[in-house]
């Protein structure tokens, strides 16, 4: 898998994580998942993804802590898009210096657009058969 086409989904809600995975796989991206910030740091250490989709409120290590650690260890090696239930998603993104934000509940197309923005266009044609 080319890391440039890979998304790391950091989300503690298993259903939501699975959903994001399906959406992104459908769109032709590779996906790995992490249930909290600490796991995400491990995944990142294994291989740098092309994009991190980051939930903010998580157990063990939340999104704020992850973003701080990530910046300390890897700088801006991968763009981060915040996926948040907060009332002001934009403010959340600004708080941690993220590159974008998705507000829950999001549109399917917004998720794909976010991935496309950082990883190149979705492989739409290949999956049109779905």
């Amino acid at each position: 898998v080319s890391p440039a086409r890979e998304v790391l989904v950091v989300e503690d809600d298993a259903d939501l994580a699975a959903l994001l995975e399906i959406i992104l796989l459908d769109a032709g991206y590779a996906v790995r998942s992490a249930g909290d910030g600490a796991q995400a740091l491990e995944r990142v250490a294994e291989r740098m993804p092309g994009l991190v989709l980051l939930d903010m409120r998580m157990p063990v290590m939340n999104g704020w802590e992850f973003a701080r650690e990530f910046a300390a260890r890897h700088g801006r090696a991968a763009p981060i898009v915040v996926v948040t239930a907060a009332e002001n998603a934009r403010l959340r993104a600004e708080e941690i210096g993220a590159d974008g934000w998705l507000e829950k509940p999001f549109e399917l197309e917004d998720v794909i657009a976010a991935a496309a923005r950082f990883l190149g266009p979705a492989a739409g044609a290949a999956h049109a058969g779905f």
Partner: protein
Amino acid sequence: VSSDAQGERDIPGLGRARAHSPGQVRRSALTPFRIVLLYAAVGIAWILLSDRALEALVRDPVYLQELQTVKGAAYVCVTAFLLYYLIRRNEQDRRVQSEEVRAVFEGMADAVLVVDAASRVVGVNRAAVELFKAHHERELLVPLSDLMLRTGMRHLDGTPLAFAQTATRRALAGEVVTAFEERFRAFDGKETVVSITAAPIRPRPGDPPRLAVAVVRDIAEEKRFEEMREEFLATAAHELRTPLAVVKAYAQLMRKRSQGDPVALDTIARQIDRLTRIVHQLLEVSRFRVGDAELRPERFDLSALLVETADALREAAETHRILVSTGAEVVVKADRARIGQVITSLIENAVRFSPQGGDVEAALERRGAEAVVWVRDHGVGIAPERQARVFERFYRAHAGTAHDYGGLGVGLDMSREIVARHGGRIWFESAAGEGSTFSFALPVAPEERPS
């Protein structure tokens, strides 16, 4: 007249307190003027009648002379006693009255501070001593500025409170201050949040205030509860969003993959959007009120926003035509999303409250320095007795009527808040059975000089 009734007439509300000491009831029909008049009349009558009587009864002039001297002395004695009696009774009444006032003052659950024109605290009740956690009321009978300094009085948000802004200073300037909220540290260091109502006391109407009386209520508990409620609302709204996101995205995903009934999936997606809006409103109305949500003003064409918003709502309004008329572009400097929210709210209401269908008209007009947007429907209208409360938070003018079409009762409250924060105003005209016209006005942005 019964003693009770008389007491109540003297000082409203104190009749009952006086009834405990019936012996000291005042016969206050005797005003000073009446006493003097009575004294003069009795005196003149006594002098004339007693002189006549003595002259008729006593022939001896020497004896008569002596008798008249005795009569004079007796008269002085009797009137002196009468005078003593009246003064004493008056004094007693006064003392009883002031004791009663004092008892009421002391018995009040709210703290009361009386401040004189020189801004010195001259009176406090027991509740005030307790509120400030003072050991003795003497500690509070100090210049107001000393008290401010010692307790660190400041605004609710912690910013310093200027001397001239204090409720009592404003009352001494002639203002009646209601529900002025501030915080301070009691003498034991405990942080206290209070609501103050202060009024000037004038010797006579029209005179400059001689005293200010401030009623101070501890609202720390209320505030804490309010904060907890807002916090809970925020958490609940937050928690609801993840499940909403999952359900909505799966519906969209299935639709995209041509799985399942497309109508059913669209309905699910639409209802999820509706739920999301409700969650959003619940959270927003409290946040916005608290002042968390800041505005992001930008220059934009209000007529374009009106057209855009109406277009977006047209899809949902199958039975209504939404007609928009705008003229030239009108540029305002405002938070575009928020103003869009106001327009949405007004059009949604217009649609909701014209259930038989019909046209909803919306227009933008420039009136002098103001841009006025109005939205008119030909629906059920608002009954006159409910009109005054239309903009009240959580008030639903049609609740419990045949025209209760749902809603949380927050749209217009939010709209008013948003418009007011932009220095604008919002109003409506309505006749029951004929429909309503809601309008709001925003200041037109001044031309920006090309740099």
